[in-house]
């Protein structure tokens, strides 16, 4: 703290805001570029380059994490730090904490950038990072929280504007979500098993996953909306009352909506219904918020045509409205049975991220940079071009994914007069949508090109700004203070605290009622239904499946829907994944479901298919995994892995744990010999990872 709170002048810390803006711009470019690469790989499989660290299934988590936590994260930190100082009329609580927050977060991103392509992944969506990074995230988040709540504590005004409420809810809930979903036991420096298994892991993960959308991509951005739209339009928010209802309803309802990611699955019905009902309810407060944002612009509509900032903000809020309309729609079980696992969901997500998060951030940055550098925007025209190119990019992206998703959904469902699948060969449904993948890549390119225009514009704006300015001092003497630090200060702090506790209760009630019953579910499974645990080699193969990120294209959850059952076999049951750490139910079927693929093909089929999918299925878009048949499997670590599993309740006997490596070696040798007999040229694949993977694939649905 460079300034005492009770002085009449203060200097806001805008340096930290600038740093976070730089970071958001740099990581944004990386996140969008990697997204474009991933999109291209689905259209044109050759773009996987047969390189393990460039393969779709490793790149896709890099893209999602970079977009959410690197681009989105740095953007919200910039906005939160900038607006909070102004709303609280004080400098940030601690310069050193700000600095640790900034550099810590960048290091975490760097760690993600290195570990994800190398295949260190927990394969739980948006929670892929391994345990040491999880711990680092917790530490840095706590530092952010101390800095933020510290600033609230030393504020010069009594009341907390609604934007700050959204920030508080964000900080609190993200902490709870991250910690609960990341409880895992390490088996090595960069690998761990979650304590939850199967359905528990699924529920906890989607409670986390959905609320990452809610509390990382929605509440903080709504806070920014409630601050920057009034700023840009220079008029107060349309209805403060509505913003209060918006806030509390969102916080209360959102936390329940997670199970809409698991509709028609083996998750108990009551939890599915809960997820569906609360998702539909979400529509009301979300639209309340959108209307509130848009009506704030009433009277400033003429600016929508001329002012790129207002343009970005208005369209962002419209996309917020669109996504929050579509989300509840997709949560209706019948709609979901068509849309789930398809690209419709990908379209939905990008309407939200590119349209809402992206455009809001762009609007905010176009507003902030000239202000912070005390200059004018270099080019309005470039900004307008950015807007239009980006906007068309989103439209093309969205429409192509919508078309692709509905096409997939309808083809998967379609059953002919004889009660047979009209498209029994999965790859037919893939070939059909490949042109749309090209269209999507074009949409993504446009979005990226628009963003590059922004980078140029920002670079020019900043480099032309007047140099050598002192930090601005802000006069606080005429702030109509309700209270000044010292007198009555405790009371103020406690008000903020009461508020925080209320938010905490709202999110905790939902979480506990929803999750706790499921945590006990495996205990009540009848013994007769229980399945055998994975053999050591199968477990090793499973870990490779997890490491490679096959879940980015394959599900392992056959829904209780006729067309799913006809195509893939009996609907998946809870007990079948009860030892799965992490669960791999998946969320997207770019390839077919694998829950019952065991025994469907001979081992040799899998071998050939993994090394070169096109040798088996000529039009396949699955990447090749040629490195799997020259990398050796680590047998030694299996003892530790099985002993961790045993500690977590998997019924391995002591002998199996103690001899896990020897057992696995024997299993592997058998499979290898059988393959060698059919093809003597395979002598080099002894003890390689692919053998473990095949053994795992063959166990699916066979236990």
């Amino acid at each position: 703290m460079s300034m005492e709170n009770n002085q009449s002048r203060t200097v806001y810390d805008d340096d930290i805001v600038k740093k976070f803006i730089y970071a958001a711009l740099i990581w944004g470019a990386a996140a969008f570029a990697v997204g474009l690469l991933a999109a291209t790989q689905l259209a044109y499989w050759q773009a996987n380059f047969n390189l393990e660290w460039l393969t779709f299934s490793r790149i896709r988590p890099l893209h999602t994490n970079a977009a959410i936590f690197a681009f989105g994260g740095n953007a919200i930190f910039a906005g939160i730090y900038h607006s909070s100082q102004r709303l609280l009329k004080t400098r940030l609580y601690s310069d050193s904490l700000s600095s640790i927050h900034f550099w810590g977060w960048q290091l975490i991103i760097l760690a993600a950038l290195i570990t994800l392509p190398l295949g260190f992944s927990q394969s739980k969506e948006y929670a892929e990072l391994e345990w040491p990074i999880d711990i680092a995230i917790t530490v840095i988040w706590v530092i952010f929280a101390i800095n933020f709540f510290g600033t609230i504590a030393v504020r010069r005004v009594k009341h907390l504007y609604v934007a700050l409420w959204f920030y508080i809810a964000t900080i609190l809930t993200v902490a709870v979500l991250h910690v609960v979903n990341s409880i895992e036991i390490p088996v090595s420096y960069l690998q761990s098993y979650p304590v939850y298994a199967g359905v528990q892991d699924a529920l906890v993960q989607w409670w986390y996953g959905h609320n990452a959308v809610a509390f990382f991509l929605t509440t903080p951005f709504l806070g920014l909306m409630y601050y920057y739209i009034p700023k840009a339009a220079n008029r107060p928010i349309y209805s403060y009352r509505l913003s209060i209802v918006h806030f509390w309803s969102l916080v209360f309802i959102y936390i329940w909506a997670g199970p809409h990611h698991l509709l028609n699955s083996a998750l108990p019905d009551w939890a599915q219904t809960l997820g569906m009902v609360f998702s539909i309810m979400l529509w009301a407060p979300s639209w309340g918020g959108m209307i509130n944002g848009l009506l704030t612009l009433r009277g400033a509509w003429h600016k929508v045509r001329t002012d790129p900032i207002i343009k970005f903000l208005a369209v962002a809020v419209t996309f917020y409205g669109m996504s929050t309309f579509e989300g509840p729609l997709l949560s209706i079980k019948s709609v979901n049975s068509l849309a789930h696992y398809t690209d419709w969901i990908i379209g939905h997500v990008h309407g939200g991220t590119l349209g809402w998060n992206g455009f809001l951030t762009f609007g905010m940055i176009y507003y902030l940079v000239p202000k912070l550098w005390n200059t004018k925007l270099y080019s309005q025209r470039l900004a307008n071009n950015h807007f239009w190119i980006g906007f068309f990019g989103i439209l093309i992206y969205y429409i192509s994914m919508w078309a692709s998703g509905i096409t997939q959904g309808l083809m998967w469902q379609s059953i002919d007069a004889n009660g047979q699948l009209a498209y029994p060969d999965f790859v037919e449904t893939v070939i059909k949508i490949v042109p749309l993948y090209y269209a999507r890549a074009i949409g993504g390119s446009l979005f990226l090109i628009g963003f590059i225009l922004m980078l140029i514009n920002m670079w020019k704006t900043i480099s032309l700004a007047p140099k050598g300015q002192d930090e601005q001092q802000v006069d606080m003497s005429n702030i109509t203070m309700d209270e000044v630090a010292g007198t009555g200060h405790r009371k103020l702090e406690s008000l903020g605290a009461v508020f925080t506790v209320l938010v905490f209760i709202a999110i905790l009630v939902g979480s506990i009622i929803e999750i706790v019953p499921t945590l006990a579910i495996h205990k009540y499974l009848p013994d007769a239904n229980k399945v055998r645990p994975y053999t050591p080699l199968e477990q090793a193969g499973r870990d490779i499946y997890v490491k490679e990120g096959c879940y980015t294209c394959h599900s392992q959850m056959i829904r209780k829907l006729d067309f799913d059952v006809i195509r893939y076999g009996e609907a998946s049951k809870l007990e079948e994944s009860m030892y799965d750490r992490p669960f791999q139910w998946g969320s997207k079927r770019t390839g077919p479901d694998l829950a019952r693929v065991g025994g469907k093909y001979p081992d040799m089929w899998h071998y050939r298919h993994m090394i070169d999918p096109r040798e088996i299925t000529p039009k396949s878009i699955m990447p090749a995994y040629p490195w799997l048949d020259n990398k050796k499997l680590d047998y030694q670590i299996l003892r530790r892995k099985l002993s961790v599993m045993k500690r977590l309740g998997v019924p391995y006997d002591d002998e199996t744990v103690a001899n896990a490596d020897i057992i696995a070696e024997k299993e592997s040798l058998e499979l290898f010999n059988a393959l060698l007999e059919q093809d003597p040229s395979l002598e080099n694949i002894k003890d390689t990872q692919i053998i473990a993977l095949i053994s795992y694939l063959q166990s699916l649905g066979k236990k």
Partner: protein
Amino acid sequence: MKQSALSYFQYPEMVLVPLILFFVFFMLLLFFITRPKNRELFKKMEKMPLEEEETNNESIE
């Protein structure tokens, strides 16, 4: 029998619990925002983001 019923924990009434909770909560919320006493407060609050400009601009040293 009881065991296998428990195993799938079918408990549709469960959905009512949060719904009732939310209903009560929402009523309290409506009560709070419509209280005439709070009107002044909201007027003051909605101006907060706009206040800063006046103090900020003139203070460049």
